[in-house]
């Protein structure tokens, strides 16, 4: 799936400029905890998140994320958009919520690119 097909599917709006729309999206990861993203995401994934701060762009850059979708039609602050433009990471805003978006993308054949967590890392007590 490429960026154009994606935006059509999620009725999304690309907020950043001059982005490379040909880079393929191999799968998806949805999370609001950036450490969870860094712990589990595989390269070339799409990141779905409810957060809007610049850290989503930094996280995407470190984890080789293809594009970021911001859920619930939120508008990220200027510093987030500036950073995304600078680093060449497309930001897309979609009116749908996280669950709806995950459902739509999964149904369209996009696999999960979240690594399963090993049992010794599951203990949150």
């Amino acid at each position, binding site marked *: 799936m490429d960026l154009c097909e994606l935006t059509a599917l999620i009725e999304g709006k690309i907020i950043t400029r001059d982005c490379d729309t*040909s880079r393929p999206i191999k799968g998806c990861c949805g999370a*609001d*905890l*950036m*450490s*969870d993203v*860094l*712990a589990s995401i595989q*390269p070339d994934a799409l990141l779905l*998140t409810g*957060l809007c*701060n*610049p*850290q*989503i762009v*930094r*996280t995407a*850059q*470190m*984890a*080789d994320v293809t594009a970021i979708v911001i859920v619930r039609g939120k508008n990220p602050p200027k*510093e987030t958009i500036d950073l995304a433009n600078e*680093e060449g990471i497309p930001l897309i805003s979609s009116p749908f919520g996280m669950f709806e978006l995950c459902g739509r993308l999964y149904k369209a054949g996009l696999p999960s690119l979240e690594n399963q967590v090993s049992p*010794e*890392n*599951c*203990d*949150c*007590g």
Partner: protein
Amino acid sequence: MDEVPPRKTKTITDQAAENITRVEELAYELKVDVVMSRDAKEASPNMKMGEVLDIFRQARISGAPVISQDELVGIISIEDIIRCLRQNDLDSPVSAYMSTKLFTVRQTDPVVEALKTLVHTKVGRLPVVDDTGKLVGIITKGDINRGLLKALQHDYQEEEIRRYRASHLFEDIVSGRTSLILRYVIKPRDFTHGGSASSYIKRALLRLGASPQIARRCGIAVYEAEMNLIIHADHGGIIRVEIEPHQITIEATDDGPGIQDVELAMKPGFSTATEEVREQGFGAGMGLVNIARCVNEMKLDSTLGKGTRLKIKIFLEAQEAFGEVSAFQKERT
């Protein structure tokens, strides 16, 4: 029987060889729909040849697909018009002169497929179709040349040049033990710029020729360490990266407050972060766990009231080493 002509051989320089390979590579990488012309001028079977001549002259083209009821039925080219002119027959319909033997190429095919078809069939242009066989564009040798040139130009952008220069650093400088040290000052609670040091470090590693996997592992580890300094350290801290041909060593140090129980801090899910930090998507107690997962060696020393020192190492395999392999082996022994 046709005789196969003997292959011409000639000596080419390394530079020339490199360029040829890149163009050849690009012909396989680039897809037809990237280089083709869209919105091609179309003709219909009932159109008069004279009209086609006018279209060709105005649009400065030498061929067009012939479409009937949304279906591709033929190709009309300047050669057909010349034949028609000889007969003084410009009032005839396109259907009388068009060629109906069609060679098409799919939009998802690599450019090299289009090139092969153009060479084998000796036609000047190929209609490009989608999976359902519907016409989406036209491709000529000119389109392919333009596409390849554009891609080549893109290849040689500044980043590439920088990468080329930096990747030779370890080869060009001879010493008993060469290392490159990067230092960054991290300000406390600076969430807006948080991660910029990690970003510089990841870019530096890629420019030095690190594999994407190594750069990613380092990037994630150092980013978590940077965020820890921003979140927890009283006065922020320092990140120091030492890059050697065979390993990358990263140290994150601060002067307080220190960690009460290092073993507990290493437990997944354990966190002392505030609500404000959690709202930023951090402080889930996975930072140190993430770092440990990305690196080969990790050492965390902390004294309450004094400060914390995190030292991590990533080892590079021989094929991933910076600079020449010989330099790598020297460092190892």
